[in-house]
């Protein structure tokens, strides 16, 4: 049976190799902290059931073992955040080839260069379709149960492995060079790489600290408006604003829908709930386009594309987001009360 754990181990090993390569890079002014950052991250990926069992046998009960393990990871995350936050992850040197050499191999390899790159999305899609439409295949590979996330990740891993093998054969490079390339791209992304995960964690912390119920309390008590157009506007704009704060439309949707949508738009004005949900969620997505809190869509790509302004992608999206939000208010107003 293929388990999600194997994917984590693969990621952990890649990150540990990157860490070792970083420590050996004497051109990186902060090579020790850069390596430490990737090494700690790699170790966190190696954690699984075996660490929980080990911890439990050390401290006695499984509950206590899990708790100590989570606290240890929490401490590691804080250390990583401090390294990243105080500029401990820097660029090194990656044995890059000259412009002429690149042009020469681009001419030699021609359109074949696209093959491994396109293999990743194409194989992922074929894999997802195959697992969803060939009966018994999912059970055979992953065992019983629902594996929608794992299916995508597994198919993508196959696509990456296939693309990697073709690329190695085509370019006659050694596998270690591909790890140097991984390190080059990871260092370019730098601290932004852990931001999506830390933000998702913050979302969970928000929930257990009761931030959601505090906001619903406020919306129910202070945003109760009678005018239909104003109510529609409050719903759509509120969804976008709260998404900008929380970084995720899925976190904002229940709060605003329970606070304004259901009591006012549906129960008081008898609007169509399906229209409200569809356009409401899309209003949240307009917010996603405009916030650094949605790091994996906005901040990470800016780092990945080596843009000097980390908000450049957000700035490119704001006009689309604002205009579409205005359109959404009118669509909601006219379609919900047909």
């Amino acid at each position, binding site marked *: 049976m293929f388990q999600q754990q194997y994917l984590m181990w693969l990621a952990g090993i890649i990150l540990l190799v990157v860490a070792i390569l970083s420590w050996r890079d004497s051109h990186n002014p902060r090579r020790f902290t850069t390596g430490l950052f990737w090494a700690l991250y790699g170790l966190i990926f190696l954690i699984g059931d075996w660490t929980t069992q080990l911890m439990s046998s050390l401290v006695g009960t499984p509950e206590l073992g899990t708790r100590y393990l989570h606290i240890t990871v929490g401490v590691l995350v804080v250390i990583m*955040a401090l390294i990243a936050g105080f500029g401990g992850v820097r660029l090194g040197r990656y044995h890059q080839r000259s412009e002429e050499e*690149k042009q020469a191999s681009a001419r030699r390899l021609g359109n074949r260069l696209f093959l491994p790159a396109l293999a990743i999305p194409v194989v992922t899609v074929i894999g997802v379709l195959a697992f969803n439409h060939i009966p018994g295949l999912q059970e055979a590979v992953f065992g019983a149960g629902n594996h929608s996330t794992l299916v995508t990740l597994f198919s993508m891993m196959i696509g990456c492995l296939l693309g990697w093998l073709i690329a190695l054969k085509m370019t006659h490079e050694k596998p270690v060079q591909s790890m140097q390339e991984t390190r080059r791209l990871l260092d370019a992304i730098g601290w932004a790489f852990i931001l999506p995960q830390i933000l998702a964690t913050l979302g969970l912390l928000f929930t257990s600290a009761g931030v959601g119920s*505090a906001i619903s309390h406020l919306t129910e008590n202070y945003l109760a408006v009678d005018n239909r157009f104003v109510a529609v506007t409050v719903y759509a704009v509120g969804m976008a604003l709260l998404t900008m704060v929380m970084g995720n439309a899925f976190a904002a949707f229940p709060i605003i829908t329970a606070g304004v949508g259901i009591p006012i738009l549906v129960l008081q004005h008898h609007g169509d709930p399906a229209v409200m949900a569809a356009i409401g969620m899309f209003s949240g997505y307009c917010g996603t386009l405009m916030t650094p809190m949605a790091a994996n869509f906005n901040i990470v790509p800016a780092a990945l594309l080596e843009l000097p302004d980390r908000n450049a992608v957000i700035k490119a999206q704001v006009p689309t987001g604002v205009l579409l939000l205005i359109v959404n208010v009118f669509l909601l107003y006219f379609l919900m009360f047909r």
Partner: protein
Amino acid sequence: MDNVINLWPLLGIAAIVVGFLLRFNPVLVVIVAGFVTGFAALMPLGDILEKLGAGFLNTRNLPLILLLPLAVIGLLERHGLKERAQTWIAQIKTATAGRLLIVYLFVREVTAALGLTSLGGHPQMVRPLLAPMAEGATENRYGEVSPEVRHRLRAMSAATDNVGLFFGEDIFVAFGAIIFMHNFMLESANIHTEPLHIAVWGIPTAIAAFLIHSVRLVRLDRRLARELDALNGAALKAKGGR
């Protein structure tokens, strides 16, 4: 009963907003906001660390999709993938950055609406292929361009991928968001909706998103033409050519 609601955890949101506005490092801002929120809810330090660790462990599949393609993409870049993408787009004489991105937006949105969300993305498509092609198409028309124009094109490429994905995936019936909305309204207020209706009523917004972003891309082309033609004209004049 309402009096027991603790509003102090909202301080965490304030910490986020202030931190981002003062342009501190986002990773530090988020971690600090996490501790502020926890302390405001009277959680002990151990509990906050425990939640932080558990959350971080449970979200490990987020960076996976970014990490796995890097070895392939990096290797291909070393052997001229970007250069090849630029040569390829140069063969299409009518190509401009804006037109290329409109075609990509259309394909990305339609495939996402069919549930094929993995046919795109920043590490696999935007960095190695889309952004170099947008840059290549522009250079092909106007010659070498400044780093600022280059950065603007890259940012717009990333933005186009996001817009296509967001406003396409949500009209795919089997997408998690649709089920999520359906379940939420059923459980919280016993309001029954058809998942298909939610998907269908997303279509007007999806079309509007395509139109709005396409118009912006056409305007990007016009602005590039105006700026770069003026720049090239000035350069020619300085040389005494015309």
